[in-house]
């Protein structure tokens, strides 16, 4: 008998966690955080100094500046000055002596302070200063709940990233992934979890003794679709993150899997094998109707919507082994996308700008993550393998998160889209797999 527990969580702004229990019940232990280990950096990184923020609240609070430092360093695009190397610790604009910083080669300075308001919120004040001109590039006051300072730190990081790199930051976006706990001798525990982009603040959305697969974010970031085997056969569910309410969307004979939301959030592309072999279908969430996309005796699975909404890529082995194909919604044509890339190309996902596909490529038993530029048709490996899977782009297109098997078991790793900067996200226990990076929080 399978046991499935659902978790309601309101993240970011509230304190209460409601736990609703289906079937068997027991208390869930606090989800372990992922820990991020940075492996390599790029020497062309922007030198920046983020001075510890002044704390006027009278309370001991988390170190906002340290979180911002870690965030920016993790992108590989910034190199931040350690606190012990700082010549001074200004927290107000008038206290900044630019000569202190230019002599160290620092180009940008961030200073700030935390102030308590009456309503139990904290204001994060920060300023980004161009050291050479001495001018302030931006300054903001961000009000947050005092237990949401980590989210506030991610917001500060986004502002700085965007101002200096002219691209959206993804620090306030979330990750979803599956963990498998093999510690128990009796049975495996599968958990669908959501965490901050740095792996902190992990919370369990669903827990089960049966496999959970294929998490997928809705475009508004409020729901997750996933596959669960709690009913013995695979079925597709959608769960609302704020309320924990979940609905079984598609079930029945055969495979029911691989859900992915359309860009407008109104449809789900899925893989169903009820008609004899796995095919791609589109499910209209409002009308609750199915529209069949592929008609072929081969396996057709792993659909992914193009950002312009005009088509989908999917995996099919109608040719020589599994390859990536594109289905055009306007004229129903199907076109193969992976040529001269060996006999195994699966699980393609678009970059946010639609110009690239990231996919799993297998050659001579080595499975690695490969980027295919759709304009130039040139592909390159961004990982070395041997057992890499489930790549997902960050919503700003700068990084790719994926799962890899190492001596420590299956864990998550991230690589910059140019392949230079690699990081590991390590779970404290069990195995971590199938990461998906949520949308930008706006």
């Amino acid at each position, binding site marked *: 008998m399978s046991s499935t527990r659902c978790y309601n969580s309101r993240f970011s702004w509230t304190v209460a*966690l409601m736990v609703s229990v289906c079937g068997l019940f027991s208390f869930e232990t606090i989800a372990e955080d992922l820990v991020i280990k940075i492996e390599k950096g790029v020497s062309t990184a922007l030198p920046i100094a983020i001075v510890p923020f002044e704390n006027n609240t009278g309370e001991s609070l988390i170190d906002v500046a340290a979180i911002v430092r870690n965030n920016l360093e993790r992108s590989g695009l910034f190199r931040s000055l350690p606190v012990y190397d700082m010549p001074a610790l200004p927290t107000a604009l008038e206290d900044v002596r630019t000569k202190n910083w230019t002599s160290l080669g620092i180009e940008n300075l961030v200073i700030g302070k935390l102030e308590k308001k009456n309503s139990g919120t904290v204001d994060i004040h920060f300023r980004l200063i161009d050291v050479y001109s001495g001018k302030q590039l931006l300054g903001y006051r961000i009000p947050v709940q005092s237990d949401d300072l980590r989210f506030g730190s991610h917001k500060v990081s986004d502002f700085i990233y965007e101002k200096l790199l002219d691209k959206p930051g993804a620090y306030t976006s979330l990750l979803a992934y599956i963990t498998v706990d093999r510690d128990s001798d009796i049975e495996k525990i599968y958990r669908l979890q959501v965490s901050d982009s740095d792996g902190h603040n992990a919370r369990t959305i669903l827990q089960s003794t049966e496999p959970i697969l294929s998490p997928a974010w809705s475009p508004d970031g409020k729901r997750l679709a996933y596959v669960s085997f709690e009913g013995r056969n695979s079925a597709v569910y959608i769960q609302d993150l704020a309320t924990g309410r979940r609905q079984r969307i598609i079930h029945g004979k055969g495979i029911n899997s691989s859900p992915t939301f359309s860009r407008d959030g109104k449809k789900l592309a899925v893989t169903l094998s009820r008609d004899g072999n796995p095919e791609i279908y589109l499910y209209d969430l409002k009308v609750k109707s199915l529209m069949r996309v592929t008609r072929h005796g081969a396996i057709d699975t792993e659909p992914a919507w193009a950002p312009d909404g005009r088509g989908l890529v999917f*995996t099919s082995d109608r040719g020589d082994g599994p390859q990536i194909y594109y289905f055009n919604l306007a004229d129903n044509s199907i076109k193969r996308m992976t040529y001269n890339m060996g006999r195994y190309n699966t699980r393609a996902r678009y970059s946010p700008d639609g110009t690239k596909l990231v996919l799993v490529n297998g050659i001579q038993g080595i*499975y690695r993550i490969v980027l295919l530029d759709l304009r130039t048709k040139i592909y390159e490996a961004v990982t070395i393998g041997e057992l890499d899977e489930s790549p997902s782009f960050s919503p700003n297109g700068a990084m790719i998160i994926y799962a890899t098997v190492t001596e420590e078991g299956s864990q998550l790793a991230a690589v910059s889209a140019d392949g230079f900067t690699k990081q590991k996200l390590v779970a404290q226990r069990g195995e971590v797999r199938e990461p998906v990076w949520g949308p930008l929080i706006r």
Partner: protein
Amino acid sequence: MRQLGRIATIFIIFLSGTSCGMFSGEGSEGIVEKSLSPVNVSEASVETMGLASAREVSPEALDGRLLDNYNGETASLLDIRVFQFAYDSSEILEKHVAAIEGHARYLIKNSNTRVILEGHTDERGSREYNLALGERRAQSLQRRLSLLGVPESQMSVITYGEERPIALMHNEAAYAVNRRVELVYR
């Protein structure tokens, strides 16, 4: 700190399964089974003809009634419930044919007996594609049983892809063991 605050305000709501999703009726009644204990497989054991399943089966499937219908030879073939496949293939291996025929005879003779064919793959490559490969393998075995005369109504197919490995190592021996279809009698 925040998480402790959350736990402190937990509400437990017992749901009978209504708003948290129904359980599919597909093949969920009357099955007596325990989950497989994962094993570490050495090279040597892979060479055996078929791997006897570590799963315990309902005693009814292998009771005195069976021995009445068959001699001991066929009964031992029925012990073989797990059939491996070659890499990237769903072709029935020649070495399994005798055991499969044994199961076919048993199922034809016992028309109230139903069997689930569970398809599995090794861990390499993507999970969703492996779900499909597992199903293809189970369907391949189902077709063979059907050709041998087993009615469709006595068989059903399910796939777990790479989600239920028997062997947990990351090597060829483990992959070979995990690429399999299991017969699960109800």
